[in-house]
């Protein structure tokens, strides 16, 4: 092995480098991050606030306003840290027993950009105190949820479009339930307790998938000192993994912060993936599962917007 470099001629070395760059799946070096404006997004601990909770006046005094057309951020932008602090204080109706020592919020810094082929999200955040005694197999996860207008709930309430009262750990979850995230449109009827197990016929679900009526998610699973694992998939009748995996994740823990880049080709690689094109408005939401958190014990953002190459969205991903 030691003799190998001596056998490489200079032109070959250059060629190898070019090839390596060209083949690298997360060639974020191709993106000019200097032009990407970083935005701070305050994520907060939501307790058991489900979509149904949001829509019920007796639980959420803003339900009427929300039903009348207001988005979550229309009332709660700027209050995220306060809301989280109130819920983790304990004895709250949305979580009587929050995890001990859990902070109420997490500051996530987000940049986004694209090149000719891929859309990128770059995240950085400082983890909260390590308090979780049950260390699982993933120290942290960062997720972005994306929609291109197929799910109106997502433009209005971000990730809450997929968070229901009967999902794992939520207020109406049946004991031992394995219900993950799903969309209300996949169920025959939604009640205050969620959509239950009565799904719409298969043909309807397939039609939804074909007509972009799903949410896509990209996730990086992180452990210090190990390469990140990328997970991509979509949410419709349940949380499903992509049939044609396309998401890549690059991560590094340095300076007391996680630095993560998630990316995926702009072009849809098949069912369950959105097409990203300039001019079209997208809805995005972010979540961080910090300190080995599972399921609902995460920090979530309210709803944000994304556009490519200009526009008035919260995040504008510009090309080179």
């Amino acid at each position: 092995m030691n003799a190998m470099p001596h056998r490489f001629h200079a032109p070959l070395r250059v060629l190898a480098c070019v090839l390596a760059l060209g083949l690298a799946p997360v060639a974020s070096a191709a993106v000019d991050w200097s032009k990407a404006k970083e935005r701070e997004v305050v994520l907060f601990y939501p307790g058991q606030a489900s979509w149904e909770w949001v829509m019920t006046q007796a639980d959420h005094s803003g339900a009427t306003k929300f039903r009348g057309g207001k988005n979550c951020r229309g009332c709660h932008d700027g209050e995220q840290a306060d809301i989280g602090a109130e819920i983790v204080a304990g004895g709250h109706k949305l979580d009587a027993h929050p995890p001990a020592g859990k902070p109420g919020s997490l500051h996530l810094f987000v940049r986004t950009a694209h090149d000719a082929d891929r859309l990128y999200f770059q995240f950085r955040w400082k983890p909260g105190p390590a308090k979780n005694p049950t260390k699982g197999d993933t120290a942290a996860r960062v997720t972005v949820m994306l929609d291109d207008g197929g799910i109106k709930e997502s433009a209005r309430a971000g990730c809450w479009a997929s968070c229901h009262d009967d999902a794992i750990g939520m207020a109406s979850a049946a004991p031992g339930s394995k219900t993950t995230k799903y969309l209300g449109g996949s169920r025959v009827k939604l009640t205050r307790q969620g959509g239950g197990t009565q799904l719409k016929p298969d043909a309807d679900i397939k039609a939804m998938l074909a007509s972009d009526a799903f949410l896509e998610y990209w996730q990086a699973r992180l452990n210090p000192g190990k390469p990140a694992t990328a997970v991509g998939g979509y949410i419709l009748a349940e949380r499903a993994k992509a049939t044609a995996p396309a998401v890549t994740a690059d991560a590094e823990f340095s300076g007391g912060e996680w630095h993560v880049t998630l990316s995926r080709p702009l072009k849809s690689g098949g069912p369950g993936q959105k097409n990203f094109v300039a001019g079209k408005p997208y809805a995005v939401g972010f979540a961080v599962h910090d300190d080995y958190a599972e399921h609902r014990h995460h920090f979530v953002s309210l709803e944000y917007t994304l556009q490519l190459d200009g526009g008035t969205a919260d995040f504008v991903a510009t090309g080179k």
Partner: protein
Amino acid sequence: MRAWIRRFWTAARTPSARWGVGTLLVVGVLAGAIGWGAFQVVVARTNTLEFCTSCHEMQAFVYQEYKQSPHFTNGSGVRAICSDCHVPHAMAPKLWRKFQATYNELPNHVLGSIDTREEFEAHRKEMAEHVWAKMKSNDSRECRGCHTREAMVLGKQKPRARAQHTDMLTTHETCIDCHKGIAHHLPKSAVDEKKPPAEDDFSL
């Protein structure tokens, strides 16, 4: 009775043979001024925090909750006392409210309708709803004695407040529609009871 009234009427119409017109005028004006002054003193005295909390039921229940509220102590050091919110500020409605108190609150105080915590809690919802209905019907008139839309700088408010106060201009909502339970605790049934939601449609 009729004879007495006739006698009074005759006396009132007969010019005085003993007192000069000037004397009668001065005495009359003085008596009027003293009467008006005394009346004002009574109205003012019955508008004080001390007077309102001099009754056991107000002191033991209502006052204790109010003392925890920002209308009692706050960053700016301005205090709104009971009468600021519960007694109209203009003279005619104020007198009407005082009159109402004499045939509503006073008899119930004498009868001891709300002597215990249990009795207070049993009536809390009904009393709160009365006040809410009254405030709704007069466009939160007493709130607006201090809080006016014209004096509000929306830019200094949190987004939630800014959005609601902007909406208020077009929705004809009034202060009490949102600001219930700000000086007293909300009736239990309004917060704790898991009432079946009025909405049964959870789609947008």
